[in-house]
């Protein structure tokens, strides 16, 4: 009963926040609605027992992708008024694409009746995951059978990191960076002078 209630709660919220994403006038609000949609989709994943995917959804999509969107939307100076100005001109094209999508949806639903797809028989490498949680089962495979590929993926990420730095980092001559060792090495004797000015003559530095 609680599951059913939770399902309807999450599903409704996904649809509502999805709608709000495309209807919101302010793009920042759109991204925030999108994040809410991701959270509720993660809730749906938990309900079907895929807790690992739910966590991925929260960490990857909410944590990285959506926040990135938010930064892009806030930092780029997009003039949304001009973007909307073309709406009427492009409306027929948009309508056509929408029709095509609806047709695909109908054909897709019709295809269900034509019977199941004949897939290959799985080779069984995935192993029996009885009694294990998804996360444990994936981990057990990833760190044993696929350890080489896992490590190689790490190298790929390293390469992309090097690439990003090579392509964006440049030395600028006009900035003053802090030299901590120089600061620490500075002695009081070098920085201060003891003077005994005679009254009425002022100080010469």
């Amino acid at each position, binding site marked *: 009963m609680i599951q059913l209630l939770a399902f309807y709660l999450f599903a409704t919220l996904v649809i509502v926040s999805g709608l709000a994403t495309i209807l919101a006038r302010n793009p920042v609000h759109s991204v925030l609605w999108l994040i809410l949609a991701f959270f509720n989709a993660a809730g749906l994943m938990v309900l079907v027992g895929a807790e690992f995917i739910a966590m991925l959804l929260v960490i990857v999509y909410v944590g990285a992708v959506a926040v990135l969107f938010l930064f892009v939307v806030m930092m780029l100076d997009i003039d949304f008024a001009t973007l909307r100005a073309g709406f009427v001109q492009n409306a027929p094209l948009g309508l056509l694409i929408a029709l095509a999508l609806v047709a695909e949806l109908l054909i897709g639903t019709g295809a269900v009746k034509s019977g199941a*797809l*004949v*897939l*290959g*028989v*799985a*080779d069984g*490498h995935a192993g029996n995951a009885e009694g294990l949680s998804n996360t444990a089962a994936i981990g057990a495979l990833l760190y044993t*059978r*696929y*350890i*080489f*590929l896992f490590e*190689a*993926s790490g*190298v*790929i990420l*390293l*390469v*992309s990191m*090097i*690439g990003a*730095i*090579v*392509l964006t980092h*440049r030395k600028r001559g006009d900035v003053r960076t802090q030299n901590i060792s120089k600061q620490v090495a500075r002695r009081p004797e070098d920085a201060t002078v003891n003077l005994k000015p005679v009254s009425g003559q002022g100080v010469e530095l």
Partner: protein
Amino acid sequence: MNLLTSLGLVLSEEMLSGIGLLLLLVSAWGGDKAARTISFASILALAAAAVMAVPSLMLGRHGIEVSAFSGQFAQDGFASYAKLLIYLSAAVTLVVAPKFFEKAGTYRAEFPILVLFAALGMGIMVSATDMLTLYIGLEMNSLASYVLAAMLRTDERSAEAGLKYFVLGSLASGILLFGISLTYGFTGSTQFDAIHTALGHGMSTGALFGIVFVLAGLAFKISAVPFHMWTPDVYEGAPTPVTTFFATAPKAAALALTIRVALGAFGTQSDAWQQIVMFAAIASIVVGALGAIGQGNIKRLLAYSSINNVGFMLLGLATGTAQGGSAMLVYLAIYVITSLVSFVSVLMLTDAEGNQIEQIADLAGLSRVKPGLAAALAMAMFSLAGIPPLFGFWGKFVVFMAVVKAGYVPLAALGIAASVIGAFYYLKVVKVMFFDEPSGKIGGKCDLVYTALVAIGCVFLSPLGYLLTGPLGRLADTAIASLIH
């Protein structure tokens, strides 16, 4: 197969990645000043990896004894053959790069490291016996390549090349992944052996789609028509040492991978892919030959020439026989050396201040200013065209032999006709260099290292190369035999 045995089999990969990580630290502390040292160390690492590949090739190792990580990776004779070509190309790139980049600005310390990781990725690609290994090797190589293409950030063309390569490369990766997932869904496995067996029991439409998409993704990497559009732009825009690298190592890796996928994983359904490969082969030969005619930039011309050459190699694959595969490997080795010679020669084309010259019109009268360089470039052109006394002819000859023997005489006739068309633009370059009035643009001194590299390559391309036909053919046969056993 326990973990230790597997780790022992991938020793050369472990060494390359370990040295890559170490050199990354050196570059972090040493900065761009350490670039030449890092380059030198990378060349040594590549040489060591090449030496480690030799025994496996000589003994033609295959099967369970070289299969690592439950059949995801094979250090067999075939992989070793391709690895030797890859490491050679990467090492030559690193030898010629410092001078070019120092002239253009600074030689970044990350350059040799990226080349090293790209070579590592290509090594993984050619050893892949599982779709997942294939994809990871391919991505490692591609990501490094995108950055290499855009290495000269201040140069607009280089940035454009990097961006184009990245966008189209990602699209190709997507197509490949789609194909892999379809193949997995309809055969039930990602391992080449298991796919081979599953397809032997018959093929569903879904699996056919999978084969087509996987081949389309690979065709992009080897720039076969109709997935060749990026090649001229990227080759022209990328810094010349990087173009040298692109024209050789990734081509060798992706072609070897295509052979392994086609003859290995999809070997039991060769009817399904032979037509596709035949079309791609003929189309590449024709487009490569016709497209090159109007080009004014020598790097673009060489890009079309590489499309054309890939077509000839695919002709060997289209036969679907072991002999065709072996002919392809022989052609591949000759092609890699010829490309290295032609691109290093292009690097030597400078004006009096040492700026690069890329326009063919500016090469006029090269034979009178720098006769040696003109002779080397002419030799490379004739060899690419496949004109008999030079070694390039031998590659075309073995491929056509294999095609005729497999009974595809019309295919061979089409290929020969198109290679005659192709000879036209190679001869045009030779004509400009030898018979036109000097343009007065060429000048400067030839670098000693470049000259030595070109000289060694020319000895290989000269008729003396024919002394190698026996050993080279035997090596290619051993390599193919280790793949199809």
